[in-house]
């Protein structure tokens, strides 16, 4: 059995809005092993994205402990979290969020500017990342010259170019058609199976969920069910 990559202990998250406490996550306990592909599902407002943000170091819990690898995120300040994110996490968003004035290759290169690396080394990593997502022939295209699926592939390449331990995807297929969604999900599967990336993916789509090996169901901030994904579990066997 692989190591526990992510561990949450009694995590609470409360937002304060207009002098009202809004509990979003309530007493969450969770373990994710290295190399697992975990899907987060639940109705709107269930806390899925909040959980993703906490694990990704974009936010801090109101109470409780979050360990990712050897790092305890709840004790880090903003600067430390930002630095930790740059080395350990790759984000994939629903709307891709590529910089429109940069080419695909330049968008992928962006995270590498945070590291001391030669231009040649950066170039090599960018080419590798775009090769993995199957877009080597679109390196010099700008986002407005790419389809939605291609843009998301570039976003995935950007997420993996720093070789992070963790990939966090928030509704990565939310803006794509069924065929393109399937391509993106297969790509995530590839990253998980071939490259051993630990992936957490938020989705509303049960078909997308079937690509994970484990599904967490949240409702009103509480982890209601934690079960292996039947289809994936069969494939694993």
């Amino acid at each position, binding site marked *: 059995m692989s190591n526990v990559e992510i561990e949450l202990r009694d995590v609470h998250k409360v937002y304060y809005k207009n002098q009202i406490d809004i509990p979003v996550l309530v007493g969450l306990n969770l373990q994710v092993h290295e190399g697992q592909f975990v899907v987060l599902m639940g109705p709107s407002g269930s806390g899925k994205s909040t959980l993703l943000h906490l694990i990704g170091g*974009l936010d801090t819990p109101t109470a409780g402990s979050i360990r990712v690898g050897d790092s305890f995120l709840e004790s880090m300040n903003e600067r430390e979290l930002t*630095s930790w994110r740059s080395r350990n996490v790759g984000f994939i968003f629903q709307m891709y969020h590529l910089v429109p*004035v940069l080419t695909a290759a330049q968008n992928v290169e962006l995270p590498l500017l945070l590291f001391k690396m030669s231009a040649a080394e950066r170039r090599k990593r960018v080419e590798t990342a775009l090769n993995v997502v199957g877009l080597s022939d679109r390196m010099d295209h700008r986002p407005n010259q790419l389809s939605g699926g291609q843009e998301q592939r570039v976003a995935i390449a950007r997420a993996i170019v720093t070789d992070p331990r963790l990939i966090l995807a928030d509704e990565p297929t939310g803006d794509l058609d069924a065929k393109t969604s399937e391509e993106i999900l297969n790509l995530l599967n590839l990253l998980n199976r071939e490259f051993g990336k630990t992936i957490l993916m938020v989705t509303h789509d049960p078909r997308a969920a079937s690509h994970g090996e484990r599904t967490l169901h949240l409702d009103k901030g509480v982890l209601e069910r934690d079960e292996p994904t039947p289809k994936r579990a069969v494939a694993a066997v």
Partner: protein
Amino acid sequence: MTLTYVLMQNLRRNPLRSGLTAVAFALPMGVFVVAISLVVLLIQIGEIAEKELRLATRNKTSLTSMLPEGHRRKIEGLDPNRERLRAVCGMRWFGGRIPGEPNALTSLAADPDTFPIVYSDVGMTADDIAAWNAKRTAAVIGRGYADQYRWAVGDRLVLQSTVPPYLELEFHVVKIIENKERANVFYLRRDYLDESLLAAGEEAGRCNIFWTKCNSAAALRSLQAEIDENFANSPEETKSEDENAFGANFMQAGGDLPGLMRTMAFVVLYIVALVAGNTMVMSFRERTREIAVFKAIGFQSRRIFTIVLAESTLLALVGALCGVVPTAIGLTLFPMTQLRIGPLATIEVSPIAVVASLVIAVLVGLAAGLWPAYQALRLRTVDALRRIA
């Protein structure tokens, strides 16, 4: 790729907006360069004036009210041993224009014997002085006029006075002044003018101003007081001032030009800052989500602050260059001699003005970018990402 490259590419994000902002910078900066160059020119004229130690004595009432030529002898009589003054030159406004042309040249009739002494900075050689003395119709003209009207030494020309009795007189060019400060002036002999006035039945022997060349600054100050004291309580009281003060008052008579330039410069800066600030605020608002993603990727808040600030500064600098460079080239290739505004026509683009414009553009860019950069610094990634979703 570098962050500087990303920064520059961001300016291309909305080319129309960036272009309009750059134009909004370019025009005012061009005006600013001209304004500052003008102020620099006025300072330079003032410095030269101080060096020449000339004292201007005019009618206390106004410059247009004339004084009798006898005032010259009385001024000279204050220092018979010539310890404090070297010479006195009476001048009368001629205001000649080329027949058929609307505007008058800056043309003054000067006492021929003392003009070369009092105006030694004109640079008349012994031969020039000999030619000036030999011909009643001699004229000494500035390089600006010479180039504009294609006059050369030896040329004959005719000017018609724009003041009564509107004499039309013939002149012969004996000297072209190369000094930039005197590019657009025309000196004729006052004895020639007086003869012509008398021949026309008009009163002669009057001057608008007497220029006294002093031997020292102290002599200038003492003579300044003495001359006016000497003519106090007379029918034609005088007001004496050094050339610098005379020039400043002369400019003030046509409106407070330096003050106007300063006001214009501040108004320009204010407008430019508002335009730049508006552009940066709009740009930031459109890119909130993108900035959130940058932070999510791992860019520190301070770095993003710097990027936003640098973008604003770069936009301002590019805009300023778009104004400064064409203005500098334009003024160099097309000097303002056509405008016939006396010494101001010799305005050149001052390096001080160029540097000042670019520095001010940078400062304005920084100021305009400060608020959006601060907002970017404080942007909570999670909140911005939620807005995205």
